[in-house]
């Protein structure tokens, strides 16, 4: 049976409960193609049931909900089933399983978690802010995974006095920090009036970037490995 849920945490936990005893359960969220001869049910998110499942899972493994949150941010199509299998293993073993590193299920779940966390780590460096005329900062990004609000937390700790918007162009959403709170908002297109000095600072940065490079030691392959081309879209030094 195919269980289609809405991609939220509570949705997953409800679907998990329904699919748990089904031996050939497949979980999906978002769009999918129904395979021939398969039946699909749409799981309606039930907060009460989700709460029970959450408490039960937490009694086996106190940290597993953090992992669930991270896994649900992953954009990999294997995510839903990998998460389901991982939590099923926790529920059958009735204990934390994250150190069972020879289990396929654990290896896959850990890989997906690593992908999200690694991208978050990279984007802490790769985000480029522009200063708008009002003094607020604006950064467009297009990460593989849904990490926009996590990035906002990082930058709030860095400069709490500057309001900023981090705009996930791919998912058409944004994380906004207004000087006090962070909230998420859908955002299709943003029109930003740049401050007077912005272009000059960008030029200065480009100049710095060009001259800090040691030309005879060119290693483009290494550069691409550390900074994939798809991430360079909004970085002024590559334009």
């Amino acid at each position, binding site marked *: 049976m195919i269980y289609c849920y809405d991609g939220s945490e509570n949705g997953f936990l409800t679907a998990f409960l329904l699919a748990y005893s089904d031996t050939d359960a497949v979980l999906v969220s978002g769009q999918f193609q129904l395979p021939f001869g398969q039946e699909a049910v749409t799981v309606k998110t039930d907060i009460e049931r989700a709460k029970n499942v959450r408490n039960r899972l937490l009694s086996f493994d106190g940290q597993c909900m953090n992992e669930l949150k991270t896994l649900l941010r992953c954009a990999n199509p294997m995510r839903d089933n990998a998460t389901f299998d991982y939590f099923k293993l926790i529920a059958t073993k009735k204990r934390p399983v994250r150190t069972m590193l020879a289990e396929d299920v654990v290896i896959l779940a850990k890989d997906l978690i690593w992908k999200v966390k690694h991208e978050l780590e990279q984007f802490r*460096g790769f985000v480029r802010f522009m200063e708008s005329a009002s003094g607020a900062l604006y950064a467009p990004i297009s990460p593989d995974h849904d990490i926009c609000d996590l990035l906002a937390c990082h930058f709030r700790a860095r400069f709490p006095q500057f309001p900023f918007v981090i705009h996930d162009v791919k998912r058409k959403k944004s994380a906004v920090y207004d000087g006090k709170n962070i909230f998420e908002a859908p955002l299709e297109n943003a029109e930003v009036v740049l401050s007077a000095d912005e272009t000059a600072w960008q030029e200065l940065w480009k100049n710095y970037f060009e001259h*800090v490079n040691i030309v005879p030691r060119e290693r483009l392959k290494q550069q691409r490995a550390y900074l994939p081309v798809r991430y360079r879209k909004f970085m002024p030094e590559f334009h």
Partner: protein
Amino acid sequence: MISVEKLTILTNGAKYDVSCSSSGSSRKNQGGIGNGAAAGCCHSFTPDGRCVSLLKILLSNDCIFHCKYCLNQASADVPRATATPDEICELVIDFYKRNYIEGLFLSSAVYISPNHTMEQLLLTVKKLRTEYGFHGYVHVKGIPGADETLVRETARYADRMSYNIELPSEQSLKLLAPQKSKESLLVPMKRLTHEASVFRAEKRKGHFLPAGQTTQMIVGASPEKDGQILRLSQSLYRANGLKRVYYSSYMPVVHHSLLPDTPGGALREHRLYQADWLLRFYGFNVEEIVPEGENLATEYDPKCAWALRNMHLFPIEVNRAPLEMLLRVPGIGAKSAYKITEARRYTSLTFEHLKKMRVVLKRARHFITASGKFFGTENENVVRGLLAAGETAMSATQLSLFNDLQIAQRETQFLLHSNAETARSALIGEL
């Protein structure tokens, strides 16, 4: 705003310094701008494959010293510039705000006098911390010969300081950097380590080099062997408490009769770093890695070379071997060793498991057994050959007949006693 020309000159002067990490300090934001990321953060990567983490810049390149290897030495004909502390601070704040950089790496040529230079460096970081309220990462170079009170005060504001040893022996220093001496570099380094430990022991308020000290050595400009360099590194790590020693393969940016005309080579630098990691994270002693008067083997990595010399200790059983021994298997690093020690608590590991867990078995298979099975080669000489071949196969490239430039670069490798002309004709098959 600092002018483009000035920034260019000061960047060009600083770019050969290899230390770039922004790790080790978790300074909190206290009402200003910025904080430290304990694990460090890379913001961009230049085409030479290095990361841009800190704004690497000189305060001035107007030097009074005559270090023969240096681009900015007093007699060099290069454009000179000196930035004001405010120009630097402004640049840091505006770059940091846009998330271009993780902090500042401030170095300087020795201008007017060591004390004056150190004073200006101190002024800049003090201004940055107090007036501009910057709490991000700051790395400041120590100026050899500067007064200790200035250095101590700077250490209160910086996250990390470094005195560059540059040349790994006293004779080479005398020859190539006549105004620097072993004492002018090692004494302040020791003093700072001591003061930092006192500061921590007394639990005083504020900071004193939370990210410690580092240093840098140029490899290939002077005749020292790897064994000697690594012995110096080990003593710096163990006796002076340094966090990191950087090795920079020599690049002939300046031509002088006392300096070699060929670059030191990236492979030697790479091998030194591998050996350095063995010293710091794998529990090796330098005596096990390389004898004093010798260089590291180029065909194998240092751990492989050690394992081949100690074949009587292998193979080891992955399900029982202690962590220290797992770490000594070529191809198994800290991550794989951790994975193995965790996973084997639940199941008896086989080679299938290891492969699934992505433990690199190319080298390791000759040195381990998994659940009693061995998939390597027992003959030591064959192992030797296989491992060396594995290394070269990675770096081998197809020769081009038509690209003269490539041949010109490569011909030096084939040159023994012939000249460039014969080497080229040999390569393109004219001989």
